[in-house]
């Protein structure tokens, strides 16, 4: 019986490991190719580098002007995450603590608005932004990303804040705190887990976003890292070593962040997907 059980366990592990290797194999091949010469890759798309060509990375970085692309991504993603965080905490506080007809309405509004697909509003927003000269600006992109990320994170924050005992608010009122002081001094320090989650969700989703970034930032020098890479592949179609090296460069920040914070990532990116 125990032998049978342990053989079963071994088969289980072998299967799980094979699936795991198959899953990350494309990324390993891409990494390996990023260190090979162009001619070598063209002979066979799968292979180990003879002499690792680290120069591929330097060339790809310069040719693709990825320094600027990363700067664009960072400015947009950091600003959008901080704004969404601030609005979600303040809005979430009032949704959690105040029972009035208006808060009831806002809560209902956002839970319905969550299901509006991107394509439902994208075309009119694009042409309005074009008229207002907001296309090809950081401002326009950031405003749009705040709007698309707001609903979900607002609901998430309000659910979290509802779990903080309101007795703490009462105590702060007796100490003479105003409502916004309560949010800053009582709620904020107790909301660290939800702050990490919100920052991570918005940062990663805006950093990786394709559809809106590709539409609202068309100027090469303003493109985010991910959309810059798409353009780069078109420009450098036959430089395969550069395409693979640039691919690794653009995915690296998020992959490293994920490997460092994998628990926060998995909890954050699946937060709210499961009904309580």
């Amino acid at each position: 019986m125990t032998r049978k059980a342990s053989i079963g366990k071994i088969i289980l592990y072998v299967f799980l490991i094979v699936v795991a290797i198959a899953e990350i194999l494309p990324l390993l091949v891409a990494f390996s190719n990023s260190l090979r010469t162009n001619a070598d890759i063209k002979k066979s798309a799968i292979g180990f580098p003879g002499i690792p060509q680290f120069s591929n990375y330097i060339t790809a970085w310069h040719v693709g002007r990825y320094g600027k692309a990363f700067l664009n991504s960072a400015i947009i993603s950091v600003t959008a995450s901080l704004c969404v965080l601030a609005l979600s905490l303040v809005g979430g506080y009032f949704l959690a603590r105040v029972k009035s007809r208006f808060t009831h309405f806002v809560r209902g509004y956002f839970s319905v608005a969550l299901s509006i697909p991107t394509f439902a509003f994208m075309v009119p927003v694009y042409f309005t932004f074009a008229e207002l000269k907001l296309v090809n600006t950081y401002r326009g992109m950031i405003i749009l990303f705040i709007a698309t990320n707001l609903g979900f994170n607002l609901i998430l924050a309000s659910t979290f804040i509802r779990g903080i005992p309101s007795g703490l608010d009462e105590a702060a009122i007796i100490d003479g705190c105003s409502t916004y002081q309560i949010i800053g001094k009582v709620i904020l320090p107790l909301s660290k887990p939800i702050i990490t989650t919100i920052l991570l969700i918005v940062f990663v989703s805006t950093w990786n976003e394709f559809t809106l970034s590709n539409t609202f930032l068309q100027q090469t020098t303003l493109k985010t890292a991910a959309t810059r890479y798409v353009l780069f592949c078109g420009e450098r179609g036959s430089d395969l070593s550069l395409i693979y090296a640039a691919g690794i460069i653009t995915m690296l920040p998020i992959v490293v962040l994920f490997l460092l914070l994998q628990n926060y990532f998995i909890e954050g990116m699946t937060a709210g997907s499961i009904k309580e």
Partner: protein
Amino acid sequence: MAKSRRDDLKRIAFFSLLPIFLFHFVLIVSPSFGTIYNSFTDWSGLISKNFIGLDNYKELLGDSQFSDSIKNNLKWMAMFVTIPVILSLIIGYMLSSVKKGRIILRVCYFLPYVISAAIAGKIFAAFFNPFLGINAWFESVGLHCLVKDWLAPEHALVSVASVDMWHWWGFLLVLFMSALQQIDISLYESAEVEGANSIQKLWYITIPSIQPTLMFILLISMVWSVSTFDYVWVMTKGSSGSSLLSTMMYKNAFFKYRAGYACAISVFQSCISFLIFGVFGRIQKKLED
């Protein structure tokens, strides 16, 4: 005292939430109504437009690209409600029965989900290159049956969907695993006493217990299949037999100066999405009764 403070709080709440609500309404909801209105016009994207009634919708009915796109979206949906769901459920069930190495395995399965569609899509497009991609490798190891033009019309849709599923199923796995952790272990123990095997346990205990999560996953799989865009656009731009409603809409809005027609496609997509939400809501209610 207490009452005036409560009224104060309501007032502050109103003035704090109002700008948040208006900001969202102006950027998301009001343009969505704009999409509905524009679908009845011949708008090119510039300022002038004429009301043309149902002409865009009538044109859609006769547009063979529209019907091809619907067929492709249905194929896409059929793949996404089966393959990644079954794969992630089985792997999730297996993974939750082991302790050692669970975290590192989960990292491997989830990793593709954190990579942008723009990057993963282009890397796979390089693999699928008919001359410079994996074909030469297949040739060299004798797998001649796999030497194909993977992004040619007869394969493109399935190839692109495969890449999207490769990235997507790890996310479903994590959803399934958190649902699996909440199942009462004593249910399994009593089943073992009665001599149930693991497949019977999966069917009679696991699946009924995680039914809300399963329903949620089927719902998002269906809804997102209606408006899926990024992988297809990155890999084929919706050409060569992989045209979808979203790529057709995108081309009309931003390349063909037919924003009004594009809006009609968006309205169609949104109606289908809300229909799916509605049907799932009904089913959920029936299951709860």
